[in-house]
């Protein structure tokens, strides 16, 4: 049973910040995991009129329980349209989708994502992971992309072991020159805070930090050199008590995504 009065843990704080990236009346493409929490939390709070779409084809389902798969019934519950996968991704390319939320195993300073493997050799990886799934498609095609994951120097790396999904590639205009569509990643959210990308170099930059985190401390959790914004770094908005309660009772009552793993 979850302790409803415990202070917010880092994953709950992260889920709240992620939800703040979602603006009302937008079309939101949701990947598996924490993005689902953020979508549902946003829908129950400040963005009741968003439309969620999924890669298995479900468009605008009636919200209910947390989806356990991007193909499960909660992604197409009473949906007016359940379309084929190819068409669902095509909507991102054609400009019908505003924003996509994606996870990662590794991310680099340009927002390039790896979900393939640890180790450089595809034939002999140290660890093989899932592969792309829809991660590459959404990152390649959607107008805006928000990345979310836990921050460690092993996950925020100088060079990802495998580029599953192109963010800003090698910075500057390289994403556009590679032929990709959309703005690419606009934000990265971790337990340390929020990051954006400096407009010219497209390098990851601290935007705000969670309570207790300093720039230097965050840098120690990062495998590449972070950019520092001008002036004082703002504090990331903290999840208010009433929304924390909602998260624990209605959005993720079983703590699937927002309880801290135990040893």
């Amino acid at each position, binding site marked *: 049973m979850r302790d409803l009065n415990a202070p917010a843990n880092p994953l709950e704080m992260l889920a709240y910040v992620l939800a703040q990236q979602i603006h009302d009346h937008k079309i939101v493409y949701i990947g598996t995991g924490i993005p689902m929490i953020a979508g549902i939390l946003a829908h129950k709070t400040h963005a009741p009129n968003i439309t969620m779409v999924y890669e298995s084809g479900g468009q605008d389902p009636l919200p209910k329980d947390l989806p356990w798969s991007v*193909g499960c019934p909660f992604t197409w519950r009473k949906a007016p349209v359940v379309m084929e996968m190819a068409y669902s991704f095509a909507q991102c390319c054609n400009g019908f989708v505003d924003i996509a939320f994606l996870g990662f195993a590794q991310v680099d300073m340009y927002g390039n994502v790896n979900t393939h493997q640890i180790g450089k050799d595809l034939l002999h990886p140290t660890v093989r992971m899932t592969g792309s799934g829809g991660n*590459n498609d959404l990152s390649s095609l959607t107008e805006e992309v928000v990345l979310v994951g836990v921050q460690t120097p092993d996950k925020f790396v100088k060079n990802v072991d495998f580029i599953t999904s192109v963010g800003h590639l090698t910075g500057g205009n390289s994403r556009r020159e590679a032929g990709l569509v959309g703005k690419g990643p606009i934000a990265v959210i971790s337990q340390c805070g929020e990051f954006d990308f400096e407009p010219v170099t497209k390098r990851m930059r601290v935007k705000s930090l969670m309570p207790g985190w300093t720039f230097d401390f965050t840098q120690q959790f990062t495998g590449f050199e972070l950019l520092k914004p001008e002036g004082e770094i703002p504090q990331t908005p903290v999840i208010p008590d009433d929304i924390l309660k909602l998260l624990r009772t209605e959005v993720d009552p079983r703590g699937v995504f927002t309880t801290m793993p135990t040893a």
Partner: protein
Amino acid sequence: MSTYQYNQEALKNLQIEDTSVLDRLVDFASARQAHLRKDHAKVDKRMSLKDAIATFVADGDCMTDSGFAYVRTPHQAYWEIMRQGKKNLQCIAAPNTNHSFLIFNNNCTYSHNSYVGVEMRGIDRNYDRMLRAGRVKILSEWSHGGVALGLKAAQLGAPGLFSKQMLGSDMLKYNPYTKVMQNPMRDDPDPVVFIPALYPDVSIIHCQVADKYGNGWIYGPSVNDVATAAAARKLIITAEEIVPESEIRSRQGTVIPFFYSDAVVELPFGAVPGNMPGYYYWSRQWWEKLIRFGCASDENLKVFFDEWVHGVKDQFEFVDKLGGARWIAEARIQTKAAEGDHEDIDFSYDEFTKTHDPGRYY
């Protein structure tokens, strides 16, 4: 000699010397011939699952994983492939979750990979071990959308499609089928990826309802199945129920035409232990046990499949192991509630973890 111009960098990176292993997937002429040679007569194609797999899944075939990993997926047909000991299959799909288990069982040796895993339940450590042990060879790396477009091109009767997906990614360095090209309609630089039409040898599609001729009706996400049905050289339809043709004619929705189908199998509980929209929910504990216990080691997975695949004769014995009539009733309520067709229920349940086996599957 191959008549195909594969991406040379990818061949080198994947260490593929004999490219003939790649040809079937893009061999339009043989796919067309296979479709022409099918019996186009509207005849009763019903047969047992055993006969359908024995007749239409050949060693060395390139097979697709239909449905969505554990949603309307023909798991009971996969178990039958495992029991019959098919050899040297290639597997392609989006997602490609279930070929991991065929690799472990020595049925599949080649992977056209897009995604393997059980999403929030975790990474499939079996696939990781199989790959590192050299028990599977990757022939191509894809995004879900890339596979979907290749199959869709085949359905459209197009030699291929130009895509904006996968550009700049390392997948293109490990995909012999794809090529980065300049958009021929543009003066300014505009890179696109050519994705050829993909023609798997065999597709097995589990439908809610079919008729004896092979018209297959799908409810819920059809994912890539209409495309794979049109693309594949051979198509097995398995269905929860076989209904009169007139019933199919009166339904609206997604239907795979009978003349694509080679075999029709009446297979109630054919998607067990996955989710069958309208019929039954997935067994969450079964999948947790597979990923958390089974996939943890070769020894565990052998124990797991000995119990759940080789130790059962058919889907009815499988359902009995899941909890029999009680499982059926619970799973039906759960899927209907999830779809909004049953009064709301509490979806909480007793989870399988490494330290706690609830001993129940619903």
